[in-house]
């Protein structure tokens, strides 16, 4: 719909009544879910956007020590994070494969795809948690430095969103199992897939920010006016 054209409608005139009546149909549950998902993604996006803005602002205070750059900083070599990222990417690919299965009526592909997505997502969460333990063993505690604080905070918030996604996905799968109707899986699984891809995208941004070297962070902060 062209929003600008819509906003120019003159509803007090009745001549165009027939055309406008035909334009708006009844509600469609799938479309409603899709609209809701868009708003959810916008809200989640705003949350991470605000966290990142505060990260950049806070990075300009003298006590901030980025987690990469100097040899003793934990993410100067981010290979562990690359491994975790690969896990989440696999989850995204798997759920996409599951969605492809529903579209082609291949239930076994769908089941395999969803199972793999859940497996890789849970593995990602465990790996992130293990990374927390690793950081703590190296002395990088949450309250040690604002950069540490942001790392724990942002990974926790991201992980919570993934757990939320897992809950919704399990609800979708359970209902399909309960209804015994694989075809009804397509629409909700598509929405879950979008959500997984979105969270992968968010993670890539977080990864880039959290492992950035001080000069990169300073440049980004300067671009934002901090």
């Amino acid at each position, binding site marked *: 719909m062209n929003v600008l054209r819509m906003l120019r*409608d003159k509803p007090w005139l009745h001549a*165009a009544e027939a055309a406008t009546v035909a334009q708006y149909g*009844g509600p469609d549950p799938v479309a409603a879910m899709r609209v809701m998902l868009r708003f959810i993604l916008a809200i989640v996006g705003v*949350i991470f956007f*605000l966290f990142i803005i505060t990260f950049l602002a*806070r990075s300009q205070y003298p006590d901030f020590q980025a987690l990469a750059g100097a040899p003793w900083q934990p993410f100067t070599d981010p290979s562990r994070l690359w491994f975790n990222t690969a896990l989440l990417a696999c989850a995204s690919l798997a759920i996409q494969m599951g969605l492809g299965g529903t579209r082609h009526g291949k239930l076994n592909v769908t089941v395999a795809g969803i199972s793999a997505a859940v497996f890789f997502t849970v593995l990602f969460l465990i790996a992130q948690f293990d990374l927390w333990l690793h950081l703590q063993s190296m002395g990088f505690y949450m309250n040690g430095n604002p950069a540490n604080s942001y790392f724990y905070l942002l990974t926790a918030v991201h992980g919570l969103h993934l757990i939320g996604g897992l809950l919704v996905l399990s609800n979708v799968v359970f209902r399909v199992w309960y209804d015994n109707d694989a075809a009804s899986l397509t629409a909700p699984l598509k929405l879950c897939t979008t959500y997984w891809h979105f969270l992968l995208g968010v993670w890539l941004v977080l990864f880039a920010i959290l492992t950035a070297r001080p000069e990169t962070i300073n440049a980004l902060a300067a671009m934002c006016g901090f």
Partner: protein
Amino acid sequence: MQNVAIADQIDELHDPQTFITKYIWSQDHKVIAIQYGLTAIFVGLIALALSGLMRLQLGFPDAFDFINPSDYLQFVTMHGMIMVIYLLTALLLGGFGNYLIPLMIGARDMVFPFLNMLSYWFYLVSVIVLLTSFFVPGGPTGAGWTLYPPQAILPGTPGYDWGIILMLVSLAIFIVAFTMGGLNYVTTVLQARTHGMTLMRMPLTIWGIFTATVLGLLAFPALLVSAIMMMLDKTLGTSFFMPALVSLGENLDYSGGSPILFQHLFWFFGHPEVYIVALPAFGMVSDVLATHARKSIFGYRMMVWAIVVIGGLSFFVWAHHMYVSGMDPAFGFFFATTTLIIAVPTAIKVYNWVLTLWKGNIQLTVPMLFAIGFIFTFTHGGLTGLFLGNVTIDLPLSDTYFVVAHFHMVMGVSPIMVLFAAIYHWYPLLTGKMFDERLGKIHFWFTFLGTYAIYLPMHYLGFLGVPRRYFAMGSMDFIPDSAQTLNQSITISALIVGFSQLIFLYNVFVSLRNGKPAGHNPWGATSLEWQTPDVPPRHGNWGPKLPQVYRWAYDYGVPGAKEDFIPQNHPVTDSERTAGEHDA
């Protein structure tokens, strides 16, 4: 998909069968709206009582031993937070949003009724957590409703321990509740409008609620983010907002954090919050004015555009709350400019309300009195906003009673005038009964004149430089003795206005039993909610068939029509169509 209401069919998925499912765990938007409304009014009465206690202290210092400085700060904080978040936001969106959206757009219910039910119960939990803070060691937080760090979480501030934690937890739960409800409101408006209900045929009430909800969905995350970070500063010793400091002679472990960062986050939420409250009020008052002036709203399209523009601009004015924080003058100039720009669409709305009344067949009913009262209070509050929006004028007036008077007029009294207008206007639909008109008018005059008796002198106190949030003024040379006399007068007025709200409560509850039957559409309104087959509307709202919409919501005084209004679900006649082609 089970939880999605299919608004084209009679929804059997959540048809209530028992008392519990009908009135407690209800998924019916009307019941949820009433649950929201009653809870919000209950908690609002607590906030009203707190303001009475504050006024007692200010009007008659040293006369009440049971109010000490800590109590006073806690009353201020809880009064502000409850009124802004737990009363106004909840009642306008959770209450009226829930009740009116499906009815006004011709849907059977919200599209996600289960989520809607959860939204209310999360809201109730948030209220319970908030009120629990009155009973924990140290009591509720006394940090002011803005909860600024570092003082909010440091010893010396009342409730710095449990109080602030419960406040932050309660806010987080509220935001979850609002998000669940808000997702429902926007999706329902976009997806469940009945046939013929184009966006530009929606009543302005729905435009206001819809835009405010979008604002809320995008602005509340800022409060959530700041609440999470402050909670971590408090509980885990991080330093997001906490600078290196010495507290009570002791070096704290915090280092390098930025309290100003919190202010930016808070006001990035806080200013849109003003419009989250104001926009639904703008919408509802437009509908009340048009209905009771028997005249189509003046400049409908402009009213819609103004709502949308105000909503967009509200994200670019937040730092005008922070002029005294030491910001760059260029930054202040930018925000002063955007603040003055947002006055333009706001002023357009005020002009259009007045022009709607111009040559209308004005019925001075109780809802209309409150609606007209709103135009006065909002104009006065808005004009003082122009003063405070300018950096150079704001600096001397900041943190004085001028600011208190300004925001109470513009976002306290004004939305509450609309809330009363709305409650009186939709009471016949809600209950099927008419309220007592005489009592309603007495309530109006006490409230309207009383609020002026409270807030006009408060502006003067602000000009004198009387600071806000002070428990007692002590001996300040620049404050004359007459200021204290004025404070006494304000307190007496406030108590009278406070107690006069009992008239409203009496009227609402007694009319439930003794009110005359309202019948269908007692105000002669055009919008869909008044065209339901049953009054009050039953579950599913519309009987077997959804309404078909043929026209906008403001066909009042149409030449040649049988009555002075034509409901939205009445087909367009040939003569109207011919006239329309002519006009086009």
